[in-house]
């Protein structure tokens, strides 16, 4: 079409539109009167809190006037409203200090996602068919209430289940009070990459069941056992800020950073020294270092206090962990172990950390206790340049841990009348994220009624009978009490930054409303969630705590003294067991290492197009799954870059393209978690493979946490791969001669 034709066509289309508009008023959208004062072209920045992970980064949202198509009182129309345009870190917030990560930058797409659920849904087809019909909130609420009223007898009340992603702040308090007053058991939290092993280890070693905070900016030596702390683990933005200072923020001082892991992560790439050890032997190396430090009398056993007393043989100098013995078990040379131990003890303040895969073995707990003891030995717990625990304001009370999802699923599957009659599901996706051996999907199908609060249909929420869609975090009151990442005491609180785009309601408000309307009403003392957050904020001490100033700056924070480790003796020596793996080495020669992906974490962010097109920084892959394999191993198996390969465990098989990577041990294959969704919006559905789908159900025995690094696999090149699923790489792209003309 040339310019002249285009003008003619536009003129004709315009005339048609005008005529249609005259004849059929319902075809022309009316303009609603704005509900808020707006200034064209002027941006305002409003505080909020990023809710994509548990770190709790404070953000500022750029809000400008725009026109959105909305529904008001059943009428579709155009509304001029304040729209979020960009997220940036909140410079005043103690965790984010003006920064947010790549995922946080993309978080705005959650609100504007084309596949967001826009109003309540009721299942209209079979379970899992994905067929729903849109219904009104009045109808949805009455359906939910009648279901909850039907389990009102004192015995039946225990059959209400609540399955959720990790909650923080007043959401956690509300859910816990709702369930307690209803007479239901505590909520079950499900997340793939949970940290319950480390929390429990920290409770035993130091007295705090909490993730640690690291004072990297003042440290002179950082030794990380597997923790992807600059990428995906714990509080990555706070870590990155401190890391920059650790490298170049102190004139004349640049700390050394050592990373111990069998597959080079984004974090490991930044290390001065990268040490691949055999999977599951990280804790053995930590005790080997402690042995050398004790033997050279650089420290004495009592320096580690309680954390040391938990380790078998600590007071006698760990005789089983000589450099020679540790060398055999970890695959390092004894000279390197001695050198590392001396560096760690002599270049203080030094800090050791453990996270991710080393905790996801069957010996995860003892590995964590070993690293805790090493930290305590060099005297860096609660000290500058070491580790400490964030002092949290007391506005919630300790969370009550519900039963493990795996146990609930097992009970549901065997019972004649399932012990869960109604399940409330809040934004977590265990059908995608749990190993097949737990049979979660099967159990969920057996539960008579499921109500989901999620904003998207995914593998789990598509099993729901009723969907009561939540606001996005930009449309909600948000609050969080960060567990780690700052030395200050923080309660982040922020009002909504924009009006809801769709016919959604915030989950806490729906819970409060249900509590009021039940036949046997609950005595929740608040009319709205806003009221509840305000009531909690009033308890916060100090002059900075006025409600207006809290809303204006996005929370309340004040400096507090560091929590000191509990040194009280809790003698309970435990030997460090060898990690056990699922699958015999003869049949399954490779360790399988799934890892949280830079773009998608546990897969919950695979629906955001910016993150799909974000090249993974290590592989440069976009829109793809891949399996990382050592080039020499690949050569032995006749595999070249991009070949479709088959990964088989005792529990399943998947296919994905091979990515030859020099940064992975020859007996390990690595795979990012995130792709492989069957059903998760137009951007993620049917793309790639899910490594979690072939994991064994092996757990860390003391916490019941999934040991997601404990599965062994075999690898084969696919002879007849059928449909090729290409590996899309950003590196090496932009070749003009490869462009096809269309």
């Amino acid at each position, binding site marked *: 079409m040339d310019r002249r034709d285009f003008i003619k066509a536009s003129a004709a289309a315009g005339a048609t539109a005008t005529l249609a508009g005259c004849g059929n008023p319902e075809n022309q959208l009316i303009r609603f009167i704005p509900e808020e004062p707006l200034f064209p072209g002027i941006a305002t920045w409003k505080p909020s809190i990023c809710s994509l992970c548990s770190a709790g980064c404070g953000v500022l949202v750029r809000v*400008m006037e725009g026109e*959105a*198509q909305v529904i008001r009182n059943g009428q579709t129309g155009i509304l001029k409203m304040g729209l*979020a*345009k*960009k997220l*940036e*870190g909140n410079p005043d917030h103690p965790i984010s200090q*003006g*920064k*947010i*990560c*790549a995922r*946080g930058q*993309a978080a705005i797409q959650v609100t*504007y*996602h*084309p596949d967001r659920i826009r109003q309540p849904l009721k299942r209209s087809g079979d379970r899992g068919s994905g067929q729903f019909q849109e219904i009104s909130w009045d109808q949805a609420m009455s359906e939910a209430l009648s279901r909850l009223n039907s389990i009102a007898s004192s015995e039946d009340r225990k059959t209400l289940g609540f399955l959720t992603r990790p909650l923080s702040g007043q959401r956690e308090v509300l859910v816990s009070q709702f369930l307690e007053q209803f007479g239901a058991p505590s909520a079950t939290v499900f997340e793939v990459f949970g940290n319950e092993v480390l929390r429990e280890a920290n409770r035993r070693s130091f007295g705090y069941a909490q993730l640690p905070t690291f004072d990297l900016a003042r440290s002179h030596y950082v030794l990380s056992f597997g923790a992807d702390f*600059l990428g995906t683990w714990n509080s*990555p933005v706070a870590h*990155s*800020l401190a*890391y*920059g200072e650790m490298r*170049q923020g102190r004139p*004349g*001082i*640049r*700390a050394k950073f050592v990373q111990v892991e069998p597959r*080079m992560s*984004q974090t*490991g*790439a*930044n290390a*001065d020294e*990268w040490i*691949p050890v055999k999977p599951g032997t990280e804790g053995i190396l930590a005790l080997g270092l402690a042995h050398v430090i004790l033997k050279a009398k650089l420290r004495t056993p009592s320096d580690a206090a309680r954390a040391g007393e938990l380790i078998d043989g600590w007071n006698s100098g760990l005789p089983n962990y000589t450099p020679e013995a540790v060398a055999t078990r970890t695959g390092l040379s004894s000279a390197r172990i001695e050198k590392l131990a001396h*560096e760690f003890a002599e*270049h203080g303040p030094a800090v050791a950390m453990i996270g991710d895969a080393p905790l996801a073995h069957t010996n995860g707990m003892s590995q964590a206790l070993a690293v805790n003891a090493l930290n305590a030995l060099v005297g860096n717990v609660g000290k500058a340049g070491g580790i400490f625990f964030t002092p949290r304001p007391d506005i919630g009370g300790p969370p009550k841990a519900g039963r493990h999802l795996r146990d609930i699923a097992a009970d549901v599957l065997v019972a004649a009348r399932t012990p869960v009659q109604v399940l409330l599901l809040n934004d977590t996706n265990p059908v995608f994220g749990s190993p097949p051996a737990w049979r979660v999907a099967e159990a969920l199908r057996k539960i008579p009624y499921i109500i989901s609060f999620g904003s998207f249909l995914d593998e789990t929420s598509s099993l729901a009978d009723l969907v009561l869609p939540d606001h996005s975090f930009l449309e909600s009151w948000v609050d969080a009490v960060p567990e780690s990442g700052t030395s200050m005491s923080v309660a982040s609180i922020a009002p909504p930054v924009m009006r809801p785009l769709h016919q959604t309601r915030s989950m806490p408000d729906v819970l409060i409303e249900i509590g009021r309307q039940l036949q046997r009403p609950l005595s929740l003392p608040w009319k709205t969630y806003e009221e509840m957050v305000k009531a909690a904020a009033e308890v916060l001490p100090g002059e900075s705590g006025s409600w207006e100033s809290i809303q204006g700056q996005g929370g309340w924070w004040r400096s507090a003294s560091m929590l000191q480790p509990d040194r009280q003796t809790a003698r309970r020596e435990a030997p460090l067991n060898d990690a056990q793996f699922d699958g015999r080495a003869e049949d399954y020669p490779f360790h399988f290492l799934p890892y949280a992906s830079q773009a998608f974490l546990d897969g919950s962010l695979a629906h955001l*197009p*910016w993150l799909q*097109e974000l*090249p993974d*920084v*290590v592989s*440069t892959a976009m*829109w793809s799954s891949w399996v990382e394999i*050592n*080039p*020499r191993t690949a050569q032995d198996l006749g595999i070249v870059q991009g070949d479709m390969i088959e990964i088989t465990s005792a529990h399943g098989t998947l296919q994905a393209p091979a990515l030859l990577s*020099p*940064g992975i*041990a020859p007996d390990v294959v690595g795979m990012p978690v995130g792709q492989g969704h069957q059903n998760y919006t*137009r951007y993620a559905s049917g793309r790639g493979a899910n490594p979690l789908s072939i994991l064994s159900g092996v757990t860390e025995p003391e916490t019941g946490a999934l040991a997601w690094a404990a599965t062994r696999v075999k690898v084969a090149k696919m002879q007849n791969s059928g449909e090729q699923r290409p590996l*899309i790489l950003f*590196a090496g*792209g*932009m*070749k*003009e001669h490869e462009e096809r003309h269309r």
Partner: protein
Amino acid sequence: MAHSWGMSVDLDRCTGCEACVVACHAENNIPTAGPDEAARGRAKHWMRVERYWEGEFPDVRLKFRPVLCQQCESAPCEPVCPTYASSHTSEGLNAQIYNRCIGTRYCANACPYNVRFFNFYNPVWERPLDLQLNPDVSIREQGVMEKCTFCVQRINAGKIDAKANGRELQDGEIKPACVQSCTANALVFGDLNDPDSAVSRLSRSPRGSKLLEEMGTQPKVTYLERETWHKSEGTHRG
């Protein structure tokens, strides 16, 4: 004196987190290409993080380098443009004037840094993703070349604000989206004509070098090399 905008990138701070990459998409209305077009090498990333492997397992190293338009003082993209769409501004930016561009793609051929991106199609934002678009940045149509602008809309907003309030522009006041987002403060932006600006001081660092500087392009982005740790130095360096 006129401004001369420049950037320094401290590779010893950069962690490869790629917050800059997504921040750039959000700020500059960069369309998502989708898997099919991305497979053809048509994904648009004005800012990217390159990575280089060195050595073999187990003695392997991986290095990151954020790469964006180097805003060359002697830019190969400019003289090849038949319509003066690629042109040099008085403040030293390699501007791309979209409504002059006729899509010859000579500039992308001439650029040694691979930082120019061609619109093979009209961009699409599936509704309501379009509500996020930044009204300060124009959307590029089919047939037009696009590239990093050092967030010229932010530069202009900063200058206008300073002028409206009758004050001098402060060093560090203007931050392109990538610099604002940088979680390790590896990226620093400012005026190279101000010898006391942070970017000027960092650009004079003995660790500094320019990307492909032997080509004579005179880039205004300075890379500060990653350091190595030696035991003999301990934690202290000279």
